């Protein structure tokens, strides 16, 4: 199997599993329990928090553990909205956010919040000017993702952070697709709230975190016990937290090397595909992108058919974000970039990872070329 869908999920690093096992086998105490056996679990998760804080460039008290990137996004967006309800009711986001942010904003609209969905240009980038124009006195949150999961296109997050800081507006960025991939500490993004998820960086599923800058007001969305500084109730997934921390620090270590390596692989692949297969267009090339992602539109064929064609060759790629494959609609991201529904429908996402080398990309290229040829020979358009 050649796995080229690392933006959907990644394999669990063996070293990370080794770190988790003792907490599944022996150290199963409840971190909140009042005896020494259980305190070992508590000490462990606080060490994990320190480890993450060190890699992210923040204080340990600024890291909250959650169960998914989605939960981190929900906590950031709902949590800010509810904490600042009395100050205002306006939220600024973009049209290309992951559904975890987008659908949360939509849910907040039913609660009386007003949401501005900023457009993007044809490269998939939001305009800082436009964003600035839409800020209002009642704006209580700006949430703009770092890298888009479908295209890999990066948003000008640092610039947005400078702007929101000046205006005193909390700024959240969904860094689920850049955490572990970018070669600098996450907190250098300058956002007040940063989401990231374990299973996207070779860590376990069911683990994620939210960075919360110390002065940022936030209401919890899960209430109950006093875990996670009162911001996220529920018995901690100790083994998962240990795995997340180890995975996060391993990714941080290799990020710089991987960044360069994947960029070369991807760029070479993109070049060759455009030569080899006519009627091909790479989406988002006009903008800075994370190096592991390429999103390609093919004339006259349907993305789902390409995905299945490749699957039958033992190659895993996707049409877009994994969690929306239940939906038959064309990608909201590509449509926001100005693609026609038909172009969007003819697109696939290939996302590289640690286990991707030249051989894998060469095989994928051949299989892709075959599949496209075959499908076009059937195609009525």
């Amino acid at each position, binding site marked *: 199997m050649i796995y080229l869908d690392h933006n959907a999920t990644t394999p669990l690093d063996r070293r990370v599993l080794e770190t988790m096992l003792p907490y599944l086998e022996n150290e199963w105490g409840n971190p909140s329990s009042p005896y020494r056996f259980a305190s070992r679990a508590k000490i462990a998760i606080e060490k994990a928090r320190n480890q993450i804080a060190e890699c992210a460039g923040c204080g340990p008290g600024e890291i909250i553990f959650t169960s998914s990137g989605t939960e981190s996004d929900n906590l950031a967006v709902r949590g800010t909205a509810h904490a600042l309800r009395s100050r205002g009711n306006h939220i600024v986001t973009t049209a290309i956010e992951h559904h975890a942010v987008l659908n949360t904003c939509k849910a907040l609209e039913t609660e009386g919040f007003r949401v501005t969905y900023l457009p993007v240009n044809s490269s998939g980038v939001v305009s800082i000017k436009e964003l600035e124009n839409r800020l209002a006195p009642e704006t209580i949150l700006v949430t703009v993702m770092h890298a888009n999961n479908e295209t890999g296109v990066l948003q000008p997050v640092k610039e947005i952070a400078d702007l929101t800081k000046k205006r005193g507006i909390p700024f959240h960025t969904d860094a689920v697709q850049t955490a572990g991939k970018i070669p600098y500490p996450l907190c250098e993004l300058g956002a007040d709230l940063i989401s990231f998820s374990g299973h996207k960086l070779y860590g376990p599923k069911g683990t994620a975190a939210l960075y919360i800058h110390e002065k940022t007001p936030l209401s919890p969305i899960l209430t109950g016990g006093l875990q996670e500084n009162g911001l996220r109730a529920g018995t901690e997934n100790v083994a998962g937290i240990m795995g997340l921390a180890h995975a996060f620090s391993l990714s941080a270590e290799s990020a710089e090397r991987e960044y360069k390596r994947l960029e070369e692989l991807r760029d070479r692949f993109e070049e060759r595909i455009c030569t080899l297969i006519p009627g091909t267009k790479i989406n988002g090339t006009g903008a800075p992108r994370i190096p592991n992602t390429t999103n390609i539109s093919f004339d006259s064929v349907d993305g789902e*058919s390409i995905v299945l064609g490749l699957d039958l060759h033992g190659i895993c790629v996707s049409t877009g974000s994994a969690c929306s*494959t*239940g939906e038959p609609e064309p990608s909201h991201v590509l449509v926001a970039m100005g693609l026609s529904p038909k172009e969007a429908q003819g697109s696939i996402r290939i996302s590289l990872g640690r286990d991707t080398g030249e051989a894998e990309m060469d095989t994928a290229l051949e299989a892709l070329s075959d599949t496209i040829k075959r499908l076009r020979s059937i195609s009525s358009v």
Partner: protein
Amino acid sequence: MGSPSSKEKTDQPEYSGPILYYNDTVLDHFTNPRNVGELAENETDGYGLVGDPMCGDQMKLWISIRSERIDRIAFKSYGCPGAIATSSMLTDLAKGRTVEEAKRITDDDVVEALGGIPERKKHCSLLGVLALQAAIKDWETKCSLKKESEP
């Protein structure tokens, strides 16, 4: 609350999500679609075009009729695997049938012949049926025109 026994308890739930729940027959028709291609204009007795690629699948279907039977059939299809496989199966079902028989082929027949298809792909099976009906209608219209133009 209903009694537990009244609840559906199946070991093979119907999945609404991923593509991969296509069965082997569907995969076969996707990989080796039957009757792909076009008929030349002079061989074509009826032609149907349904769907709009701007908002989903599209299918083109050609038939030639001999002795009130579908003698040759060919299709081209733009769309998802469900669309391709159901189109292929439809042509297989229609081939050799009398026109009257072919008219009665339903989307359910296509799905049944494939041994099932994921729930959210069921609508695809209508594409072929409609294309076939359009092609038959095209042929019937031509026939009646021919009859009218006969002295």
